[in-house]
């Protein structure tokens, strides 16, 4: 089966007054229909930009985006409009992602109206169906965003995305602004929707326990570059890139009797402005050598397990 989404050597650069920000640099991956891919990394690693570039909220600088076997990198006009029907996004902040002056039904009905397929009572029915689908009580039909809690708002955002009948949804940290008990409700909703509608997700988050729970495969990003990608279980049991190792060991564990050995990496993330060639993690990496200052290549080190580290085999004794 051909993958639903293929991204090849995707780049997104922003020119700024201080230099060019390499927000997404040479990212390649593919995603099968009906699956979830988690994208993890720390703030500023370009994970949100990656999602927004793929669904054409921002133009890409270079590279290819192939959706359903078709090159959609430079679609415009009506084709872009059609593509937006297939690709949607759920945002991080349930406070700023909803127009405060639009009620629940205004927000969900807007894409329906724009599609031109629904009018009058049909519009209202479809709107109520979507509200029901995402679990918003129908008494909130006329409610405004500020009258709802974060979880409900996030459901409205999901409803708006579903109104386009998408096949692929970028979830940009959809639960990171929510409390634990509410977060679980929204995660369950997203998983149910995937089962029932066959949706494909790209799940962008910094929360590794969430990503482990929801995704089938994972991309680990560091400063715009993809450093490791493989199936979820594989990553959590056998991470090969030094950054992935540090990232995973840094999660505070709730297991008080088996504290894991932590790899604390020194220093902080450097800036992605005009980076030098080579591995961007090298400045913090305990294994860095001369060879790391040369450009790195994403290698299939184990079947289905891609790592961008020249010392990977050596470090992991493969």
């Amino acid at each position, binding site marked *: 089966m051909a993958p639903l989404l293929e991204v090849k050597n995707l780049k997104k650069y922003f020119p700024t007054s201080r230099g060019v920000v390499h927000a997404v640099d040479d990212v390649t991956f593919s995603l099968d229909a009906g699956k979830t891919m988690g994208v993890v990394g720390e703030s500023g690693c370009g994970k949100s930009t990656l999602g927004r570039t793929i669904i054409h909220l921002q133009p890409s600088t270079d590279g290819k985006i192939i959706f359903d076997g078709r090159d959609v990198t430079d679609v415009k006009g009506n084709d872009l409009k059609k593509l937006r029907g297939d690709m*949607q996004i759920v945002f*991080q902040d349930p406070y700023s992602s909803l127009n405060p002056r639009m009620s629940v039904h205004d927000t969900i009905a*807007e894409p329906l109206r*724009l599609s031109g397929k629904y009018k009058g009572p049909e519009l209202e029915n479809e709107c109520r169906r979507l509200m029901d689908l995402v679990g918003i009580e129908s008494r909130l039909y006329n409610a405004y965003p500020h009258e709802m809690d974060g979880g409900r708002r996030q459901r409205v955002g999901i409803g708006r995305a579903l109104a386009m009948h998408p096949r692929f949804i970028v979830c940009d940290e959809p639960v990171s602004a929510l409390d634990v008990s509410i977060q679980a409700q929204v995660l369950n909703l997203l998983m149910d929707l995937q089962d029932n509608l066959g949706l494909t997700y790209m799940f962008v988050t910094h929360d590794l326990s969430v990503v482990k729970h929801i995704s089938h495969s994972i991309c680990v990003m560091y400063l715009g570059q993809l450093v490791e990608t493989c199936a979820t279980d594989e990553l959590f049991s056998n991470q090969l890139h030094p950054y992935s190792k540090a990232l995973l060991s840094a999660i505070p564990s709730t297991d008080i009797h088996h504290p894991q050995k932590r790899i604390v990496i020194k220093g902080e993330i450097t800036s992605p402005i005009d980076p030098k060639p080579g591995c961007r993690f090298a400045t913090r990496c305990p294994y860095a050598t001369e060879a790391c200052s040369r450009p790195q290549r994403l290698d299939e080190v184990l079947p289905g397990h891609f790592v961008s580290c020249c010392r990977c085999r050596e470090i992991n004794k493969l």
Partner: protein
Amino acid sequence: MAETSVRKAKKIPRPGSAKYVWYKICRNPLALAGVIVICLLVILSILSPYIMKYDYAKIDMRSAYQGPSAEHWFGCDELGRDILARILYGARYTLSVGVLSVLISAGVGVALGAVAGYFGGAVDQVIMRFLDIMAAFPQLLLAIAVSAVLGTGFDKCIYALGISGIPRFARMMRANILTVRNQEFVEAAMSITCTKPRIIVRHVIPNAIAPLIVEISMSIAAAGLAASSLSFIGLGVTPPTPEWGAMLASARNYIRLYPHMIMFPGLFIMLSVLSFNLIGDAIRDALDPKLKD
């Protein structure tokens, strides 16, 4: 919180609509009083030539400086003109200077600010630097300069005040647009295939303009005051036109001996300023979805 939100009565208009604003004003006694005062002033001003016993310009030296009496409720000025008649007739000048000049400054200012804010870059630079130069002068000083160039008179006074108010509105609109433009719901609108004009009209402007509407209504009051100031220094409406500020200006010489001459026009200026401010407050509240019912 979430549980309270269903609008029960079907009669309540849709929030955000003009009807809803009116509905909210009607439920706010102070704002309603403001509306009534302004309406009364407008009506009386229009009717004043027909209902007043005295003509606003009729000089009667025998009753000069007369205090309030049954004959002349607010007394007479130094030329024996009936102050009540002058105030009511003058309302048409003072109020229309306020409203029209603010329409000019808000209309032009909002458009310039929206363009500068939404498109940014060079457009923004050119517009804002030009407005910065204008804004470097205090508004009243600018108005004085403009009217010194244009000359005196009712219409020129409106232009002077209108032009001098542009930078403030443009600046506010631009700042609001900049905050709204970067919010995620604008991106969301893009992703559900909203066109650019639709995004601007439906998502950006409604969220950027609310603070300005208040500012506009407040500015009407302020412009009325500024018009009075212009008249006061002899640059606005000239005698014998009974503009309130002009009336204050000519009465200031007699403030010790005949305080009624300055008191009544002052009272009406205060009353109309207060009314516009109350209405402005109510409109702001009505447009804020967080303060719904």
